[in-house]
């Protein structure tokens, strides 16, 4: 039997395998190194990076729901300068591809960070976060308006040759519109989905649990929403689509791959089971072996 090819190609560059860790759930890579072999990952998507340091939102920032988690982190991150001086030396020692999640309030914020990432050797590519629901100017206005998104992606494209992934928001009526807008403006790939706007109410204090009111829902509860978003996006565009949202088991990742994704990210579940991405990877491999698939693209097109 032929060798299974697990590699994923985006804009001519390859990822060793299709399973990465979702932005914001894995820090800048090193936090989980005592617990899993981070170099066996297909990619590490970092916490969002903005030009300036951001302390993040007023706590409490987390609320657990039925099979889900609402977060309101508020893009807390060290900012570009500290990233370059403190995080890059650590990233240099990681062999797994590093994809930096870039966020901002304005177009020039995105451009500033992307310019720096183009020059930064350990960075494999960038993922534009145009879909954070947890800050007033967290890019979600870009992600939910196809014309604004197209302008942003086109502007960023001018400063970056490395793979440019655009992470879409599920908080839209039809995700195929921003998907097409991003593709037309020059994106190399899409990732779907970021978290869904959600609220949990503390019935004793008679207030939302999270001070901002709403946060973003992730975890197993959102899996079917993510799969639908990937299916719709993959039908709408020709560029690769990366599936993210609610993956806890290999079967969940296979749903995404069969719905049209070329790769996946695992997030919330790894908080509980840090080994999730590697367990998902070996499950995908096993399925492909048993079912006679030799590459990820052979999983596409069944429906």
């Amino acid at each position, binding site marked *: 039997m032929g060798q299974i090819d697990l590699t994923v190609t985006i804009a001519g560059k390859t990822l060793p395998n299709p399973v990465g860790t979702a932005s*914001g*759930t894995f820090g800048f890579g090193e*936090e989980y190194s005592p617990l899993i072999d981070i170099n066996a990952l297909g990619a590490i998507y970092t916490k969002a990076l903005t030009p300036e340091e951001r*302390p993040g939102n007023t706590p*409490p920032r987390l609320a657990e729901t039925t099979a889900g988690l609402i977060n309101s982190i508020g893009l807390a991150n060290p900012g570009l300068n500290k990233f370059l001086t403190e995080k890059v030396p650590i990233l240099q020692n990681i062999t797994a591809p590093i994809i930096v999640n870039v966020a901002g309030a304005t177009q020039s914020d995105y451009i500033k960070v992307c310019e720096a990432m183009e020059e930064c050797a350990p960075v494999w590519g960038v993922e534009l976060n145009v879909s954070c629901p947890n800050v007033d100017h967290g890019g979600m206005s870009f992600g939910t308006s196809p014309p604004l998104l197209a302008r942003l992606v086109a502007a960023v494209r001018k400063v970056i040759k490395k793979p440019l992934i655009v992470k879409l928001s599920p908080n839209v009526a039809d995700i195929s519109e921003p998907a097409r807008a991003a593709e037309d403006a020059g994106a190399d790939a899409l990732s779907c989905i970021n978290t869904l706007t959600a609220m949990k109410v503390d019935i004793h204090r008679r207030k939302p649990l999270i001070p901002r009111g709403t946060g973003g829902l992730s975890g197993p509860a959102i899996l079917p929403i993510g799969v639908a978003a990937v299916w719709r996006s993959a039908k709408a565009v020709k560029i690769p689509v990366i599936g993210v949202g609610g993956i*806890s088991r290999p079967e969940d990742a296979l749903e995404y791959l069969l719905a049209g994704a070329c790769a996946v990210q695992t997030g919330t579940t790894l908080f509980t089971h840090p080994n999730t991405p590697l367990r998902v990877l070996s499950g995908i491999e096993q399925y492909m072996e048993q079912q006679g698939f030799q590459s990820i693209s052979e999983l596409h097109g069944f429906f």
Partner: protein
Amino acid sequence: MIQNQHNSEHPPCIQRTGKILANRSIARGCGEIRIGWNGAEIHPSPGQFLTLAPRRYPLPLLRRPYAYSSADSSGFGFIYQIRGPGSAELAELRPGDETDWLGPLGTGFPPPEPASRPILIAGGTGIGPIFYLAVALKEHGPLVVTGAREANLLPRLHWPPGVHVLPCTEDGSAGIAGTVMDALKETDTSSAEFYTCGPAPMMEAVHKLALEQNRPCWVSVEEIMACGVGACQGCAVSAADDTGTTYQRACLEGPVFNSRKLKWDR
């Protein structure tokens, strides 16, 4: 025994499966679990914690954090209060059952300054880390003030010789009648080094007393956590600083903080 991690690197954490050695009730709605190392002995410091994976993932979804109440060559323990789905699972555990733990996590209590008298104040399940600390500090003759609403909520524990325990109940059904703060009023705290874990209003009162007395005070905070390893920024607590908008992670820089480094006027 107590390492001062407030200015050093953390030992790495590990994730293992351990067998339950014992699970006993120590007060109403409150138990103590002991778990064997199963070949993975580590040396957690008092104030550090572990997280336990839910047995029926994804309901509940997240690991639950518990502070170590003991650790020796035979295994480690923690004290839990039954609150919701995660802790309800704990009450069901029997000797021989397996559990998925991850630890040691966080920064624990530092050793006391020379010539100071450790005064340890626990409320509710704050008793777990305070018990472990008292055992570690027994040569210093620590005073432990432990409070509960009524006698059958006060955990029954075997305190080692050298530890002085002052139980308090709000209804006067055991020990001193009143709160831990009432008991502290009757105590000479002029050379105290305060260590406290429990409800936030209690810790704030201890912090204020420490400020008045100009004595050091260490608090162990409880914040909802997702990763427990410093990756998600979910467990932020507000730090005391001029800008008023900086945060510390309860799971990494904490859960034990110098009380003067935290913002209390919430």
